[in-house]
């Protein structure tokens, strides 16, 4: 990885640094990489739209095959899925997955121009609905349905900040108190500034290979990718999702409520891996807001609906607890570097399963799961095992 921050340099630099670190870690030469899978960024001009080729050129053309994926926050997982499929199909033995971003300050804004057929442009123009306002709708809903409190939301931030202190790749590495969180300005009621993830620069990369290749290169017991879930929602999607103006209508559909999109993301990963949530030792989830982390506890099956607050209050999701969540510090400590984020989740899980996470190590972790969700309906969940 290249550390997250607000470095203000070209995103390609971060991607190349992360790629070189991943290659060194794997003991693989760049010239040996047969497939390059780039996760795209839409805020850095044309090179960002063709990130796979951009990184390949920066590392030096070798003739390797290439793909570039954009899936908003899920771009990294989509890039992992593309590389993994090549390996599983026997089309290549070893692949490099890279994502990196340079972000503007403040709220994410839509891409420029006047585009009245683009819901992402229209939600800003007609509603002034920034990303945090959608996160806040879910947070308020949790308070109403499950009795979540502002103290709970602050406690998630306090926990993640405590984890991130020990992560050299995190942007924010200082503990915060609940009082400091609750004294930070309200951005979108009930969410406060310290509970909403920042926008960051950063880069992450992975080397993926077949088991044969790994063993031939001295990796006797490598971390395995047991599943990659890139599911879409099911109709009717009954939860309002960014950047939409409305949910699907369920009026013409009979039968009970289907699983929500967020529930279906990890479910598909568990099914593919042949495991259940009870097998998970450590999780990295997309805490775009502190409140959203609580939703994820339920959506990835760590507890039943309505029990996330209890899980948090009991300390189960802190390092040392029963099922630590976001030992990396999460988006809370990283801020979001969109195409790198889902890859960074897998980096963290890999270090955890290898026992290389230092002071943030989850003892004895053998199974990890990541979860996140890309704008417009891109699911993202990766299960890794050892």
């Amino acid at each position, binding site marked *: 990885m290249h550390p997250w921050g607000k470095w203000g340099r070209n995103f390609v630099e971060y991607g190349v640094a992360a790629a070189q670190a991943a290659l060194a870690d794997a003991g693989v030469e760049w010239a040996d990489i047969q497939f390059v899978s780039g996760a795209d960024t839409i805020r850095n001009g044309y090179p960002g739209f063709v990130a796979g080729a951009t990184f390949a050129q920066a590392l030096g053309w070798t003739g390797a095959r290439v793909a570039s994926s954009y899936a908003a926050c899920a771009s990294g997982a989509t890039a992992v899925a593309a590389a993994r499929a090549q390996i599983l199909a026997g089309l290549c033995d070893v692949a490099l997955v890279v994502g990196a971003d340079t972000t503007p300050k403040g709220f994410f804004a839509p891409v420029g121009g006047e585009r009245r057929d683009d819901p992402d442009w229209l939600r800003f123009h007609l509603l002034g609905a920034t990303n945090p306002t959608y996160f806040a*709708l879910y947070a308020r*809903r949790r308070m109403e349905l499950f009795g979540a409190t502002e103290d709970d939301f602050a406690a998630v931030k306090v926990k993640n900040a405590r984890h991130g202190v020990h992560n050299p790749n995190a942007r924010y590495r200082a503990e915060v108190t609940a009082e400091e969180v609750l004294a930070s300005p309200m951005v979108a009621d009930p969410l406060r500034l310290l509970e909403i993830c920042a926008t960051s620069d950063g880069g992450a990369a992975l080397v993926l290979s077949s088991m044969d290749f790994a063993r031939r290169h001295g990796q006797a017991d490598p971390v395995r990718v047991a599943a990659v879930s890139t599911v879409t929602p099911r109709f009717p999607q009954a939860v309002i999702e960014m950047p939409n103006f409305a949910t699907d209508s369920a009026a013409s559909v009979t039968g009970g409520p289907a699983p929500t999109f967020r529930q279906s993301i990890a479910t598909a990963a568990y099914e593919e891996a042949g495991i259940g949530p009870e097998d998970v030792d450590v999780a990295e989830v997309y805490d775009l807001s502190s409140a959203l982390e609580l939703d994820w506890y339920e959506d990835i099956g760590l507890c039943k609906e309505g029990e996330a607050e209890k899980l948090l209050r009991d300390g189960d999701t802190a390092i040392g607890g029963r099922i630590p969540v976001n030992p990396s510090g999460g988006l809370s400590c990283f801020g979001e570097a969109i195409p790198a984020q889902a890859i960074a989740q897998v980096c963290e899980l890999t270090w955890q399963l290898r026992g290389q996470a230092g002071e943030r190590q989850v003892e004895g972790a053998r199974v990890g799961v990541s979860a996140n969700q890309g704008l417009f309906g891109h699911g993202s969940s990766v299960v890794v095992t050892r």
Partner: protein
Amino acid sequence: MPGKTQVAAQPGWYTLDPEPALLGSRCGRCGTVAFPKEQAFCRNPACDGTDFAEVELSRRGRIWSYTDARYQPPTPYVAADPYVPFALAAVELAAEKMVVMGQVASGIDAGDIHIGDEVELVLEPLYEDEEHVYLIWKWRPLVAGILKDVSEQLVRAVD
């Protein structure tokens, strides 16, 4: 504002009647309603309908959730100067079994409303230029709206 023409900020998405309504589509084959209007293909995966009728959505619903925007959103939002924060609501329409976003009517804060409150669709200016006032749909809470009207009348009576 006098002399300026009132137009929709997003033409075709809602009527400009005194009792305005959002304009959705209804699939001629399976009856699925969509907002904004579906033009080409029905989004119900079990249906291959391609003919859609324009329908007015329910003018009243109940708040599914709500929030506010304390900081000025970036362009293309056209903010007043100085910026005036506003509340946002996701509103559940019972007949359509769907949730529709909208700003909450001006003057009503997030602290004035609750999940489950009944709201009604109204039109308000979103922004204006030299010739036009651009109208947008908003959700006006029935109870909070009446309380606001009464309090304003009281203020005028005292003045």
